[in-house]
């Protein structure tokens, strides 16, 4: 039964191949991708249940010995993130059907969307499951290359401009990761995450610290932690709405996951406590100040994304069980809330042709549903009770006030302040887009939809179209908003799982024994 661990990686890749084979038929591609993702969600749910009741599920791929082979492991942390990420991926896929993202003719290149989307999903799953630094690198490359394709989809000028920066940042982080892996291998003679702690313990302290810092910088670029976050708000907003949504939900979280995994399992998390706390405070504050200054919904959301990565890093930096538990809970909350917000931004763009706050207004009258759909995840993100954002922040702040040192209190203060500023930023956006009356002076001729696939098509007028929201887009968004709200209702069991996951992380032994076998 442990072979189930392989499925979340294999199934999407197989599905991607099948999608390419059926490239001529959009319908076949849809059926294949839905079937694959539903199956992966089911597998992830079983994995989570098994990991929670029977301990980490480990597989040595191909039956090779651990020392030279590749291991995939699903412990509580991996399985939980896998389940949430595939659920979100599935919702975004349904949304993309609604958007008609692939109403393509035979000669357009957009039939690559579904296969690439599935490859991205395989890369994310593989990153969550891999118990081997080099396999983690390969997983990152798989998801990065898929994201390169998705972010430049259609090859328009704005996307090529934004995509170029994204690709270069990706290249540099990959090169850094490779250098780090070579150094780790040279120092320890293994890249297996379960073997590394024992081997690294024999190394001199400075060597260990250098390796730890190199890995941290690599993952910090992927997770967009200040000062390595400048690439994110510029590159995300130009992509199509489903692509931005899935990137915002998953890609940075993979970086956060890698930081959690390596800081707990491989290295001594306390060594960099001060550095991580300072980085967390700066990420929270600088990110949210950027969000406050934005006048475009998608850019504003991208900055809040950076800011809220700081919360997760805050929990990790504390290095306590409560801190890790809060951080994992926050990752789960943030994946759903942030993706939902980007999907709503896509709906606004679909409806009005823009996400510029200067040109939006009065949307609440025409589309009250949209107003609610934006407000709920926005309040969730800001941490208003009883939503899951409040519970996550509460858990982190409680964890932050436990150690009792000055820096932790500073971080708690920063967390509260950026929560307040998040509320200010999203409330400002909501007021301007939905509540206050529309400006009539929207300039003619600029009403193209930069985020839609149909470049060259213009919407009929800059005013709000009288059409209803397309059900295919609204229902998945509603489902995701419902999921993010639903976390509140399962918060007790969920916090139980994250608590046990955090205990496992700090104990290390369950993971190591699952990979290497009981006898070690």
């Amino acid at each position, binding site marked *: 039964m442990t072979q189930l661990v392989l499925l979340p990686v294999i199934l999407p890749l197989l599905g991607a191949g099948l999608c390419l084979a059926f490239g001529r038929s959009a319908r076949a591609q849809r059926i294949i991708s839905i079937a694959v993702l539903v199956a992966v969600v089911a597998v992830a749910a079983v994995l989570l249940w098994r990991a929670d009741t029977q301990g980490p599920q480990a597989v040595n791929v191909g039956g090779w010995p651990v020392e030279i082979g590749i291991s995939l492991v699903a412990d509580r942390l991996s399985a939980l993130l896998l389940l949430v990420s595939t659920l979100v991926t599935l919702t975004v896929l349904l949304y993309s059907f609604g958007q008609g993202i692939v109403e393509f003719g035979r000669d357009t290149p957009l039939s690559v969307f579904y296969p690439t989307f599935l490859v991205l999903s395989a890369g994310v799953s593989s990153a969550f499951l891999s118990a081997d630094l*080099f396999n983690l690198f390969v997983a990152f490359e798989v998801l990065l290359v898929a994201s*390169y394709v998705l972010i430049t989809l259609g090859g328009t*000028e*704005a996307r090529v401009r934004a995509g170029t920066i994204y690709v270069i940042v990706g290249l540099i982080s990959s090169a850094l990761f490779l250098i780090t892996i070579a150094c780790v291998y040279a120092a320890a003679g293994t890249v297996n995450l379960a073997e590394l702690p024992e081997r690294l313990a024999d190394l001199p302290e400075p060597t260990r610290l250098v390796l730890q810092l190199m890995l941290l910088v690599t993952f910090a670029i992927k997770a967009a932690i200040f000062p390595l976050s400048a690439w994110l708000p510029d590159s995300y907003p130009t992509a199509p709405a489903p692509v931005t949504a899935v990137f915002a939900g998953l890609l940075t979280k993979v970086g956060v996951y890698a930081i959690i995994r390596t800081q707990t399992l491989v290295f001594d998390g306390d060594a960099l406590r001060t550095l991580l706390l300072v980085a967390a405070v700066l990420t929270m504050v600088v990110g949210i100040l950027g969000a406050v200054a934005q006048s475009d919904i998608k850019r504003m959301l991208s900055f809040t994304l950076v800011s809220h990565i700081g919360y997760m890093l805050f929990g990790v930096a504390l290095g306590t069980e409560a801190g890790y538990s809060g951080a994992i809970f926050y990752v789960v909350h943030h994946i759903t809330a942030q993706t939902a917000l980007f999907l709503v931004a896509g709906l606004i763009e679909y409806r009005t042709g823009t996400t510029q706050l200067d040109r939006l207004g009065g949307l609440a009258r025409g589309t009250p549903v949209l107003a609610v759909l934006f407000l709920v995840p926005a309040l969730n993100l800001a941490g208003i009770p009883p939503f899951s954002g409040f519970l996550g922040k509460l858990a982190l702040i409680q964890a932050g006030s436990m150690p009792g040192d000055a820096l932790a209190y500073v971080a708690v203060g920063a967390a509260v302040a950026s929560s307040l500023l998040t509320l200010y930023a999203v409330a400002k956006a909501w007021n301007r887009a939905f509540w206050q009356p529309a400006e009539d002076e929207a300039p003619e001729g600029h009403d193209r939809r930069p985020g839609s696939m149909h470049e060259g098509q213009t919407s009929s007028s800059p005013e709000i179209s009288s059409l209803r929201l397309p059900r295919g887009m609204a229902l998945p968004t509603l489902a995701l908003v419902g999921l993010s709200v639903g976390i509140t209702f399962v918060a007790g069991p969920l916090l139980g799982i994250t608590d046990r996951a955090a205990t496992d992380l700090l104990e290390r032994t369950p993971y190591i024994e699952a990979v290497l076998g009981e006898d070690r």
Partner: protein
Amino acid sequence: MTVDLALVVAIGVLVACGVTLILERSLTRILLGFVILSNGINLLFLLASGAPGRAPIIGSSDERMSDPLPQAMALTAIVITLGVTAFGLALAYRAWQLEGHDDVQDDVEDALVMRRAHDDQTSTSFDDVNAGMPDEEGVDPVDTTGGDQASTEPVTDEVKDS
């Protein structure tokens, strides 16, 4: 662990050249830099595998064989580099098709700030304290008199896009 000086020097030169090229503006040069840098990193893997030995085939020889694992990693890295480079070249070609050059452009916001600094304007999201009413629309008095609306970031961005 003994280290091969020639390899170390080669890695140093390759990485230095790679980093220098990556700092250029043109995407093609950045890609060349990335290729050179990757070659340097692949040599680093060779270095990480320790002292050289016979071909790593069990039973082929009684002498000490070299560590095959870093070689496998280097091979994987080479393949990935190939794929990414191909994508990057396609991207550079597309940029050249659209704009006539493949220079990496500034962040739209940076470009806006630079243009405003050049024109000596203030930001649209800056509310003048002395202005009579709160400026919810983000339209700065200086902007309406001095500059034209079309020069603000959102509009130019979309013009580019369309």
